[in-house]
């Protein structure tokens, strides 16, 4: 692993990208960003990140899912930890988790928006250490 772990943020909300980026940069991580599934694929191909923070509800409702599935079913990429962050909660009756969605959703960690800065950093650190 490089001196500065590289983290890819994938979220279609530019403000979330901005906020998460600020939090991660405050701890000296290198940050790359993508606002769509296509952009994320590009970034992963050009500069392999050490961790991906992935928004689960992207513009086409299941792009986050699809991307996660693709990553975890690609032998070359499956080792990259995926930290899934969702913006829907139980109130809406639309929930998913690695436990309930099995092979379709094999994120390494999972949290709901909004996530507090220290919590985000603690989990990111954990995921990177595991790897």
């Amino acid at each position, binding site marked *: 692993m490089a001196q500065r772990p590289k983290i890819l943020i994938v979220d*279609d*909300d530019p403000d*979330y990208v901005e906020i998460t980026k600020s939090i991660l940069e405050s701890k000296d991580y290198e940050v790359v960003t993508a606002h769509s599934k296509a952009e994320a694929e590009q970034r992963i191909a050009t500069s392999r990140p050490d961790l991906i923070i992935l928004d689960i509800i992207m513009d086409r409702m299941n792009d986050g899912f699809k991307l996660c599935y693709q990553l975890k079913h690609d032998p070359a990429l499956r080792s990259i930890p995926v930290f899934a962050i969702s913006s829907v909660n139980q109130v809406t009756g639309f929930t998913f988790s690695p436990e309930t969605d099995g092979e379709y959703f094999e994120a390494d960690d999972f949290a709901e*928006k909004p996530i507090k800065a220290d919590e985000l950093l603690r989990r990111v650190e954990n995921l990177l250490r595991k790897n």
Partner: protein
Amino acid sequence: MRSTPRILVVDDEEIIRLGCQRILSDEYYEVLTAGDGCAGLALVREKSPDLVLVDLLMPEMGGMELLEAIHQHDKKIVTIVITGYATIESAVEAVKKGAFDYLPKPFGPEELRAAILRGLERRRLLLETERLRKERERNLLELAVERSRTATIIQSMGEGLLVVNQKRQLVLLNPVAQKMLRLHDAQALGKPIEALLQNKALEEFMLGALAQHGSHPVLARKEIPSGHEPNTVLAATLSPILSDTNEVIGVVVVLRDISEQKRIEKSKSDFVRMVAHELKAPIGAIEGYLNLILDGMVKGDQARQRQILERCRDRAAALLSLIRDLLDLSAIEAGKVAQEMAPVEVDKILKEVVELMGSEARAQEVTLKLSTAERLPKVVGDREDLMRVFTNLVSNAIKYNRPGGEVTVSASSQDSYLVVAVKDTGFGIPPEEQSRIFDEFYRVKTEHTRKICGTGLGLAIAKRIVECHRGYIEVESEVDRGSTFAVHLPAYKTT
């Protein structure tokens, strides 16, 4: 029978005719007489007497012949033959053939009266019997009609209906139920439901109800997947049929297809989920930014702080317009649209919209032009609603444009429609997304649109308003060249 019985005397001997008349008229009978068979028969046909006295020995048409004719005409007319000794055998013959009695000549008033009384008693019985027979027939007919009516109703009802008896046999099934459950077995009736139904849930539901007894069997409802087509759901309402001793002797099940309802419920809950997500996003962003500042992650960087505060303000403003749009959408859902319908001049509305949007266009460095044809027809519409539609389209055309771009608003008459077109020179909409841009919360997301605030409801609202005006809205677009939104509204005929 008449209150004054009508008696016909047919005899060629005048003395007999007159005698009978005299004796019987005293007894409150109406007496008719005829001197021969033909005249007698004519009177029978014309007057329908209750009783006929027939002399067997007459010239022309003989008594026997007349008797037969009377019986052919109406079996309920009682006949009594008048006969001399010479014709006693004939009289017996006549009785065998249907005459009620015979009266041997010479006869006295008493014998005549007695014979008449007996004859009329017979007549009463015959009429009563007939009346009862007719009544029974009518009842049977009614019953048959009633039965076929019930059958017709059951056959034609929109719900599926099936009845199962205590032996679990299917005893009634209407075509709709047949179709819903795919029971195309012509011999289905009488077979146990386990052998027929390929629907475990329904079968268990029915058998469970059959097994109930003693306590108060109740009406039950259950939603059951039809099992034949995906997403078809049947609502089964089950009610037990009870005997006099309150035993369950069968169950009636009414099936209703509620797939459409379910679909609507699902799209409503999807909508709620989308709304929750759309409401949460800006709040979450604002909270995230505030935490950045509070956690001291942007200390001392004035410009960055200001930029963050501006984003917070923009997201809050966007949230407010989202809430406004949601309220509008629910007002439209509740039918509060196209309320103030009146003939309106669309070119005037367009002029107002263009003036209103002028400053926004300048801010975005977009040229805004209006060109309307001469003598445009009016349209019947709600001015406020139409204003809203065009404002939304023009605002989109400005927002999704490029600096130095143009927006052209035009109005023209095409066939029986007035067409308003809003043309821009913006990013355009990819063909695969064009059908979806009118969906709630659907927003085209590209590099260009990311920073543009929109609720994703504007076009959905515009489309609904236009449709409430019996018009339609279309889009033509080419990526990187621009889009044209055209609103077609039925022209108002002044004729």
